[in-house]
């Protein structure tokens, strides 16, 4: 079962994502961005590289939005698609992660996600873990 689903929004892209814990939630939401917007063209001969991502914020929602926007922005600026994240540090104000990525040429891009927004942003802990709802501008 996918750990995210699309929810209705008139113009943009709204996504509900689940994670076992907060770390998992951050990782799954970032991965959802690339699963939704791109399709891998080949599996062989793909050279991967690692990028360290660090983010700071005043609170958890801000950290969440900053993290997603950093990933989107890095992807667009560097021509990379991310397919794995290892989050080594995550507090309400700090995040450190190692991201695995490869050249955008290995993918077919189906849609452009411009940014994550604060509008109707919900991050909450529930019985089975953590859940977030976030709207992306597309």
């Amino acid at each position, binding site marked *: 079962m996918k750990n995210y689903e*699309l*929810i*209705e*929004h*008139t*113009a*943009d*892209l*709204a996504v*509900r994502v689940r994670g076992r814990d907060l770390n998992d939630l951050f990782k799954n939401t970032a991965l959802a961005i690339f699963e939704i*917007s791109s399709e891998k063209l080949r599996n062989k001969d793909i050279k991967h590289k690692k990028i360290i991502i660090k983010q700071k914020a*005043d609170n958890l*929602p*801000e950290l969440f*939005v*900053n993290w997603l*926007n950093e990933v989107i*922005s890095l992807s*667009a*600026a*560097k*021509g990379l698609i991310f397919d794995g994240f290892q989050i080594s540090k995550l507090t309400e104000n700090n995040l450190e992660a190692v991201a695995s990525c490869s050249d*955008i040429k290995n993918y077919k*891009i*189906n*849609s*452009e996600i*411009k*940014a994550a*927004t*604060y*509008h*109707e*942003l*919900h991050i909450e802990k529930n019985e089975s873990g953590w859940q977030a*709802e976030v*709207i992306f*501008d*597309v």
Partner: protein
Amino acid sequence: MYETREVALEKIDDFRWRIPRSYKPGMRVPGIIYADEKLLKDIRQDKALEQVANVAFLPGIVNASFAMPDIHWGYGFCIGGVAATDPENSGVVSPGGVGFDINCGVRLLKTNFQYEDIKDKLKDLVYALFSDIPAGVGSKGDIRVSAKEEKEILVKGSKWAVGKGYGTQEDLECTEENGAIQGADPQAVSERAYERGKAQSGTLGSGNHFLEVQVIDQLYDRDICDELDLNLGQVTVMIHSGSRGLGYQVCEDYVKSMQHCLQKYNINVPDRQLACAPVNSAEGKAYLSAMKCAANYAWANRQCLMHLTRMVFEKIFSLSWQKMGMSLIYDVAHNIAKIEKHVIDGKEKGLCIHRKGATRAFPPGHPALPERYKKIGQPVIIPGDMGRNSYLLAGTQKAMEETFGSTCHGAGRLKSRTAAAKSINLGVLLKELEAKGIIVKASGRGTIVEEAPQAYKDVNDVVDVVHNAGVSKRVCRMKPVGVIKG
């Protein structure tokens, strides 16, 4: 998450509705929506009205939080919103009131051709336009720009493109702000934004951006049509694009930095995407300087796209673009914030006008208009969807008096992209369009479905409202015959 609550509206007249200040404690002004009963039914389907009310919280907002009939749910501001703030009364500027695609806008150019002149070559023309004009997500163009030139584009806008030979002085006169808004400061733009916009000059982009070959199918104001030399059956070209990756990053950078301004300036807004700072604060000034850079980038981009279009026409018809009469009618921004002079209680004031999915519609005689349009008013370009119509309107005095010189910007979405993808069959859609004589070429098959006519309101209904309400007037209507999508 998305349950909507009924917003109690007061009817002002057949085309205007009010959200009273009492709707939500904290609203500084009422909300005013331009719509008729039919459009209102669609508008009530999502949370756009709630967003109109939220915008009314902005410090220094003047008169009302306005929404045009193409209004739909966005993030922070609704799409189709107009908000003016008074810098002398703690008025703020909000990057969310402009959006990620800064100076997304439209330009319309005419030709001397009648449809009959091009119909046999239409397929070749559309395929050549698709081949020569880079489109699609993250598309990169053939127009190569050095690092030094990139900064030049941010200050000079369309003038940079004209300097490179991609147009004429006349094109600049027929562009809002002459294609370069003053006060752009490249220092206010982050390195990431430069990197994200690199090599995207002269590229269409994706989503709802397009290039259309159109034919005029209805004349409304014969005097203005005569003035513009526009006739029934005449071929026009419409280009819809924006500031690409550079603009997205500028918005992102400043939404992020302005989160801190809410506390610093003690600003209370119901949605953090409405983060803002006083226009006269260091943060407000920095955003406006960067936003102007992105706006200028977008004007240069549309100028380059028009140049590429002219070159394709030259290739297909073996005539110079001048001989084909491919002059620019006008270019308008529909995602922008600008300091403009407006009269409030009999006094002229410099206000910060946010237009997010709204178009400037200045009246005849306005000093911002070029001489050639002083008599007829500002040309306003309203793109519709790929299967129905687009419009050329003109600005009015009533818009100046009621909506800070603003009108609608398009048809406005009706269906979400996911709902469109689920309910529309690509093959059936393409056949329907073909039956109407419309050739479509797109980078992604998904885009065609997401942007299908059924996903939009009928632009004819939207334009009826702004015309009947008097905030702009119909000049002529076009129908698409060739569509290039990203």
